């Protein structure tokens, strides 16, 4: 890979747009999963009764069950959201940048 192609990529405003948008998107999603997980751990450590409360009148299932399953699903959904946008929108932008830099 020649030196110049990297220079041409860097000179392309779309490249900075890609890095900025994708970078921000990735960090926001990282923050979301950190907040969800450590929020969950914090509730367990400091307010476990919140999760131990019954889900409805007379039910054995507690609030903790849907919350716990929700944390698992959120991890799957968040990665899904990232893949959807990265493999579509961001990869298309990358393709254009590479094309224009040849």
């Amino acid at each position, binding site marked *: 890979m020649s030196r110049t192609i990297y220079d041409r990529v860097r000179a392309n405003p779309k490249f900075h747009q*890609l*890095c900025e948008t994708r970078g921000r998107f990735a960090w926001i999603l*990282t923050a979301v999963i950190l907040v969800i997980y450590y929020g*969950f*751990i914090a509730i367990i450590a400091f307010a476990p*009764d919140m999760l131990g409360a019954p889900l409805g009148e007379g039910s054995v299932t507690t609030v903790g*069950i849907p919350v*716990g399953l929700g944390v698992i699903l959120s991890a799957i959904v968040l990665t899904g959201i*990232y893949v959807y946008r990265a493999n579509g929108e961001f990869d298309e932008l990358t393709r254009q940048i590479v094309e224009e830099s040849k």
Partner: protein
Amino acid sequence: MSHVSRTLGTAGAALAPALLLPTLAFAAGSVDGAVEKQAVNVTAIAMFVAFVVATLGITYWAARRTKSAKDFYAAGGGITGMQNGLAIAGDYMSAASFLGIAGLVFTSGFDGLIYSIGFLVGWPVIMFLVAERLRNLGKYTFADVASFRLGQGPIRSMSASGTLVVVILYLIAQMVGAGKLIQLLFGLDYSVAVILVGVLMVAYVTFGGMLATTWVQIIKAVLLLSGATFMAVMVLVHFGFSMESLFKTATEVHSKGIALMEPGGLVKDPVDAISLGLALMFGTAGLPHILMRFFTVADAKAARKSVFYATGLIGYFYILTFIIGFGAIVLVLNQPEYMGADGKILGGSNMAAIHLAQAVGGNVFLGFISAVAFATILAVVSGLTLSGASAVSHDLYASVFRKGRAAETDEIRVSKITTLCLGVIAIILGIAFESQNIAFMVGLAFAIAASANFPVLFLSMFWKGLSTRGAFAGGFAGLACATVMVILGPTIWKDVLGHPDAIFPYKNPALFSMPLAFLVAWVVSKMDTSDEARAESVAFDDQYVRSQTGLGAEQASSH
């Protein structure tokens, strides 16, 4: 029926404490204490032999397609996103995470869910921060990425040390776990079981390289997911697919009663809990045998897909183990054929899933699940061994010792010799550690991965200012700090060495050792005013373009 479960059970009593220790959270596969040899389980052995024959067939097929170094280390880059997702999930679903987490749910209910969640949340982080950059920059090992613009010698030596320490700790835990589990499930001698695992893993890796290793892992992942799905569905059928009635019956028969549905005493100390969370979250992103799988796919697009599939499959698997644990409370607990004279479940709580297999599917299914548990260990140790062999041949031999001038054939030969050596070491250590307390080992491996491998990898990709000296100092600071804190902490100082009180109060060092690694790397890099450091900082710009766009990245070879 009861005969088999009874023989499984009595010896399993010794297996229980190890899997119940908090370090269970590390999916250790560690089984401590003495285990009696069991009667030979013919169904299980027949199914296991079928698995071995099939995987050796695949190894033969893979060997004929494995010619170049790229084939050997990265399966030619021709693994698809879905296949790689299954293989990654397979690396993560060890025998202990299946038996251990189901057992934890069986004894503690909701707390089991808390642990499994900790394992899962590292995956989104890998996806958002690591996966695509890793694929765009690396070739065969994560050291390729860490040393991309830094000094090859020091950084590769350090990354290879981090890799080998993690791999050997993990291998010992798996070998000892394998020996005991096989003794328990199949009635083979401990040493026979360990040697069998060692010989098979060396065969897969040396002959079939990454292609065979990946397919062994994929097959095992499919078998384990199918078996676990069957068990969970059978449990749900029993309750007309009503979770509420499953939970209700469980709370009625379990001694913990309604407390089964609430967070219990598992997360006692918030500092330890957060530290464990950090080790799980970021350690996953520093495990060499996981990271190497990102080089087996064609491009960043496939790398992302594989993380998505892996996250989905692992999440699904943990939901299954949760149902299986509760199913065991209802269908195994208090059933006379599974209970010992002492009123406890035969073989201890980690046998809950095995007993449940028998309860819902009879002896044939029990044999199937036992064979899958064995296959699981085999698949995991193969991946570990290949990862360790790559660190020696690709990083130490080809890049450091021969300074990048080694012929590809020599490099592959070194890799195969290393695999053989690792196999011998794993067998010797597996036998040597038979009656040692090894519960700390995988915990330590995760802590080191989070404190040495991850910070260096992360900073090399994200921070322009990182210099060779900074990375070297930071990585070793994290490695040393995590090791010392675990030695002085409750798991070794108190439980292994028998001192009354631990010098370092927490079981999990990551909360301290990981920031230390970042801090040392930052300070040393800042103080580094050498010409090399300036050149490395300039080189970041091109690395950045490549990491973002994949321009100049290793391409997949056409298979």
